[in-house]
């Protein structure tokens, strides 16, 4: 019986394609918006998560945040010896440390003047940058760090800007470093494996990115640094990461005779969780607003079903004369409106999904369309159809056959 009604409902829809389409439009737009927004939200969250993975999900920056009115003491700062101590104490939990130092200034080459950022890193930095791929030459080694060589690893786009080609291993450039003009030799060129959209997200500045040994920055000032960049063990996450970060700060504070509030730890993981929560909330809010158009669509369905019921008064009377019960008529019309809106939901989903997939392909960004969202959306639109179809269906079912048969 259900299958019969289904087939009848479909043929009724097909018989009047234009009307069916206009009726479904509200649902199509509503579902399309909901799916579109949910998918965009999920995709952005995925992107954000990937970016944080690329940056290093266990990365944190620790820096001085002295509240003491008496002022900052020398012992508050970080020294190289302390860094070595941390490495020993925390072992593999503290997978990476550097002093978070960098410097940007102008470099003049045959092709012109560019701003180049030199970021000081340790030799195992590459392990924490999943999107960094060495294209030519090599990355820094511990020898480079120990010997404090003025060597540099440049991004391929930087190489192009400075020298006009990518394989520039062996080439040199001069940059002002610690007051004097230093010559840096390129020992490697890397490529950043990120989609253009991700690069936009990461904040693409015009400065050219390069990496130099962290030990080069020691000569500056008094061998004291106000902050650290650390990476916790890659296996840490969520709770374990949080605990490690807390332990680290506590230890640092204790050994410096300070409170843990005097140091601030800014964790990528935390930020990501915040951003994710924020995006999630926005998606839900916007999805909710889109759902309002579903109600409008439902009203449209109710209207059309009322018209349809009136148009088919004779038919209803005939069916009753032939033996249809009130329930039979009710079911028939409910299924019709459910099918109408379910199909609207399917069309809306297809259009939204298609648009998003195309957009993703164009922007070279993999998109996320969760099957559960699709199922919920189509299911919900069927429910909308049933809900808004009840009144017309009841009207149809309650028609007196004698009166209905006389209807012109």
């Amino acid at each position: 019986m259900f299958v019969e009604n289904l087939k009848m409902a479909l043929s009724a829809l097909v018989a009047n394609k234009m009307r069916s389409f206009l009726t479904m439009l509200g649902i199509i737009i509503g579902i399309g918006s909901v799916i579109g927004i949910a998918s965009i939200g999920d995709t952005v969250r995925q992107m954000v998560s990937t970016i944080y993975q690329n940056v290093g999900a266990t990365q944190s920056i620790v820096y001085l945040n002295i509240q003491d009115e008496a002022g900052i003491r020398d012992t508050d700062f970080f020294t190289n010896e302390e860094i070595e101590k941390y490495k020993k104490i925390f072992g593999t939990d503290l997978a990476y440390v550097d002093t978070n130092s960098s410097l940007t200034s102008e470099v003049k080459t045959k092709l012109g003047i560019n701003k180049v950022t030199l970021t000081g890193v340790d030799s195992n930095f590459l392990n924490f940058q999943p999107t960094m791929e060495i294209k030519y030459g090599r990355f820094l080694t511990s020898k480079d760090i120990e010997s404090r060589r003025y060597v540099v690893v440049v991004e391929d786009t930087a190489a192009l800007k400075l020298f006009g080609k990518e394989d520039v291993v062996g080439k040199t450039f001069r940059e002002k470093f610690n007051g004097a003009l230093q010559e840096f030799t390129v020992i490697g060129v890397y490529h950043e494996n990120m989609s253009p959209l991700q690069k936009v997200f990461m904040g693409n500045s015009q400065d050219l990115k390069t990496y130099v040994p962290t030990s080069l920055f020691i000569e500056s000032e008094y061998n004291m640094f106000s902050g650290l960049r650390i990476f916790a063990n890659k296996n840490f996450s969520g709770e374990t990461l949080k605990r490690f970060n807390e332990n680290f700060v506590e230890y640092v504070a204790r050994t410096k005779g300070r409170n843990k509030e005097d140091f601030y730890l800014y964790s990528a993981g935390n930020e990501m969780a915040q951003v994710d929560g924020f995006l999630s909330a926005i998606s839900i809010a916007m999805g909710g607003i889109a759902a309002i158009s579903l109600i409008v669509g439902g009203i449209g369905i109710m209207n059309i079903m009322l018209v349809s019921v009136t148009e088919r008064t004779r038919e209803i009377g005939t069916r009753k004369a032939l033996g249809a019960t009130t329930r039979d008529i009710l079911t028939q019309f409910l299924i019709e409106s459910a099918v109408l809106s379910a199909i609207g939901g399917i069309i809306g989903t297809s259009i939204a999904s298609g648009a998003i997939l195309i957009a993703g392909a164009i922007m070279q960004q993999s998109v996320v369309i969760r099957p559960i969202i699709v199922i919920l959306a189509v299911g919900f639109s069927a429910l909308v159809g049933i809900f808004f179809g009840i009144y017309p269906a009841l009207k149809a079912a309650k028609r007196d056959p004698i009166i209905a048969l006389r209807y012109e």
Partner: protein
Amino acid sequence: MAETKDIIKLEDMVKIYDTGAIKVLGLNRINLSIKHGEFVAIMGHSGSGKSTLLNILGCLDRPTLGHYYLDGIDVAQMSGDELSRVRNQKIGFVFQSFNLISRMSIQKNVEVPMTYAKIKPDKRRKRAIELLEMVGLGERINHEPNELSGGQRQRVAIARALANKPPLILADEPTGNLDSQASIEIMELFAKLHKEGSTVVVVTHEDNIAAYTHRILTFKDGVLQSDRINEKPTPFGENVGLGDRKS
């Protein structure tokens, strides 16, 4: 042996209906019985009560007082759904304006009563095709009603009426919307069905239509005025219902 039980029995049946302002006595103490296998015409002008009677005989309406026994069952106290079931199983309707469902093939139209009887799809299809062949429309089973002439549509309606093998065929002015040629063919079809054992009751106001039947009940002002046997029913040909006719 042919059944000689009553298919229709009305005992002191009264129908009063409420038009809001006043109550109208539609049918006044009707007593009549129709046996299985009869071919009856119900005649009368408008206002005679024949439409009211038709609705009650067809279980679309209930008597106000008295009894209506359809094939032995008192239908007066039945609920709406029970009456639907009775209509589905016991009565085959044929309407003046055919009342076929458009957008549906005539085969599917004939299947409708069987759908409500919860008969399985393949059985339904088979029977629908058989019935359409019997009324001479076997070549057109996939056509829709609007592709057929009036006479053809009424033949589909008759096939539909026979779908669940009901003991009673109830026709309301079946030739009212047909030309004379088609009218003859339809009445001959009824006559043939009667010859094969069906009980056929035709409501009409036309004498030449009633002439096909074997018994004529005449109503006036809500009362059964006369009940006479038609000695010489109009004869019908042997090749009724075969092949596609002009109608």
